[in-house]
């Protein structure tokens, strides 16, 4: 008996992958942004606003009519239930999705996801204080990685696994491009020479993508915007680069049935990236390139839905009856 993946299950696994990835990115972004703020001289008008931009949490934040202070922004991104993208909500949703598809994963993996959820329930408010923030958020990161590591080592690499990975990498590609977009849209500029701060900013971007050390090893030059852009978007060996995400998406799609449309969209995005000279992009050009990448990821997401999660199906018409009749040409494995 072949195990079939239900459309609903595929949908939930995909979102589980996305939410886990989102939780990890959010935790990492808050940590690296805190780090950046500590490095910056107080006179630079660079506050906590960009964190809201990177996580796309403006609407829910502004509706509360509050200043973008450190405490307000961090609370909004960690514990606030009204922010659909907060860590607390991402982990709730991740668990809820896992709960409804737990029979599709190794049994222990739900224990780990549940453990992360319980950790967040009790511990996340600790992230509001700057002194405990790093420890608390590292706690989220290590737990997400534990889940990720456990799944990749012990889960059958079947269709269910492919959907988890697709969610993970579509989310990751989206986050990477968004972080770059925010950095490009809000360059640090002080009264003196902006140069050292620009470096600082791109170092922070690299850190928030866990890519600082890899950059040193792989690029072997001081951090600059063109080199960082090229590295973060196009390096196929960096797990958080856009190229790596698209390659992973392609590999997962290849294992799935009926993959023509999404695979075509993925290949198109990968080709565009390959042909672009991203290091030379600046200002409005850079922003429109990032926009295009994001649109392509959104298109991929739509194809996933149309192909696998909510497809239009042809329902069989009346035919021969009886327990052993023929099968109307429908797959029966």
């Amino acid at each position, binding site marked *: 008996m072949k195990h079939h993946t239900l459309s609903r299950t595929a949908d939930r696994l995909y979102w589980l992958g996305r939410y886990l990835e989102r939780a990890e990115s959010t935790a990492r972004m808050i940590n690296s942004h805190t780090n950046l703020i500590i490095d910056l001289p107080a006179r630079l008008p660079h506050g906590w606003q960009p964190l809201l931009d990177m996580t796309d949490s403006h609407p829910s934040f502004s509706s509360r009519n509050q200043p973008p202070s450190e405490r307000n922004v961090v609370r909004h991104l960690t514990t606030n239930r009204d922010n659909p993208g907060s860590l607390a909500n991402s982990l709730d949703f991740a668990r809820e999705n896992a709960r409804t598809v737990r029979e599709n994963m190794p049994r222990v993996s739900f224990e780990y996801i549940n453990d992360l959820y*319980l950790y967040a329930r009790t511990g996340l408010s600790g992230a509001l204080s700057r002194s405990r923030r790093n420890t608390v958020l590292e706690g989220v990161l290590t737990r997400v990685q534990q889940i990720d590591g456990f799944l990749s080592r012990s889960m059958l690499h079947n269709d269910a696994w492919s959907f988890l990975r697709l969610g993970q990498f579509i989310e990751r590609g989206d986050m990477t491009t968004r972080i770059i977009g925010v950095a490009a849209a809000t360059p640090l500029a002080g009264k003196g020479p902006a140069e050292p701060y620009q470096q600082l900013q791109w170092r922070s971007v690299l850190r928030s993508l866990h890519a600082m050390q890899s950059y040193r090893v792989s690029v072997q030059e001081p951090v600059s915007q063109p080199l960082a852009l090229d590295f973060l978007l196009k390096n196929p060996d960096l797990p958080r680069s856009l190229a790596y995400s698209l390659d992973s998406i392609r590999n997962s799609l290849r294992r799935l049935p009926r993959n023509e449309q999404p695979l075509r969209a993925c290949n198109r995005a990968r080709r565009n990236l390959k042909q672009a000279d991203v290091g030379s992009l600046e200002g409005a050009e850079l922003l429109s390139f990032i926009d295009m990448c994001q649109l392509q990821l959104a298109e991929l997401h739509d194809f996933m839905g149309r192909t696998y999660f909510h497809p239009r199906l042809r329902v069989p018409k009346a035919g021969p*009856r009886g327990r052993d009749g023929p*099968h109307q040409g429908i797959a029966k494995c």
Partner: protein
Amino acid sequence: MPIVWKHYNADGLWDELITSSGRARPGAGSLCRNLARLSDEELMARKEAAELAIRSMGITFTVYGGEDSGSIDREWPFDIIPRLIRKREWDHIRRGLIQRVTALNRFIDDVYHDQKSLDDGVVPRELVEKSKDFRPECVGVSPPHNVWAHICGSDLVRDADGTLYVLEDNLRVPSGVAYMLENREVMKRVFPELFEAYLIHPVDDYPDQLARTLSSLSSRRRPEIVVLTPGVYNSAYFEHAYLAQSMAAELVQGSDLIVGNDDRVYMRTIEGLIQVDVIYRRIDDLFLDPEVFRSDSMLGVPGLMRAWRAGNVALANAPGCGVADDKVIYTYVPEIIRYFMGEDPILPNVPSYRCVDKESRDLVLDRLDEMVVKPANESGGYGMLIGPKASRAERNRFARQIRANPRNYIAQPMLNLSTAPTLIEQHAEPRHLDLRPFILSGAENYVTMGGLTRVAMRKGSIVVNSSQGGGSKDTWVVDLE
């Protein structure tokens, strides 16, 4: 202070572990000595380890908390002192259960076909046809092997003199088997050394046996089996997911299935539609198919009954099998066994009074303070009156209900349910319990080794339902011979 068995006092009731003279029952000695050796700290540490295991394994059940709070996930309540049953006694019980379930299946099949047993007056015809679980839609349908109740979870209780009775036949969608399996897992994690002294029969072959039973309902060699759940908010969702996973079957909701005009059932998958052969359904009859039963059901699948009646899909349990799970019909089971099996029942029924008979009714109303009164079609311990513990006002209310609708009630003398030592703070105290074994019927029969032991955690209480503060224990069938 550690557990001191000679201070343990079961108050003259039957205790599953300790005799009335304070000694361990045959076979329980090693367990009792092991437990008595543990200090308070060690006992509490084991208890906490069990709670931690349950939390981290995500073993939960869902309770409906009322309109304001919706449903809440609670961790499964578990007591770390196991309950022991000797293999020899179990073999007897096992035979009794198979006899009983076989007879009930023949009865159901008869009800929906020739109704010989009704003609012969084994069970009053009116009782069956007026039962709210009798489904005219099932008349004339012949499920594979003529079996209707494929999964049965009988409740067994022991009285003060040690007699084991069948309290209820749960034939509709009995739950609890996943907790039986998980209890063993938790026990092995927290008390591995206790297992060394015993030959304990494993319980973990249940999922394979269930898969085998379900497969036998299809003529295909490798049938497509799914578990149909009402969804995550159902109290037994944990179990639905658990069983689907352990059988490698798909866990589906109504919306995942569709019945074509060819009267076949398909599931929506990433490959397109795939035909389904066997549905282990965990939703009630009336929600199965909005075309036939409740038209407002969002849980079911329109057309499912069509497909079942056409023989294109097997439903386990079959619709309509609840007719034999009515608490009034229950009182006729001994006659049903004699009629269909030509044998005396191996396991007795709890003596029961049918309120529909005037004589019995008068007796019940007269002695309401000694009786347990049960409505015919409720489960989960809801809607019951426990006479000796009820207030006068509650008894009066029940008396009125019985007079208004006598068909709907039976009464049983209050049994002195057996107890087993249960850890309450650091002490072992007697708590009442029951046992729910699971019986599978398809091409063959299978009975779990033991079953799910449920404990009433409150002192003196006999309500073991987890929705009402009940706990559970690992159940060991041990070979002493």
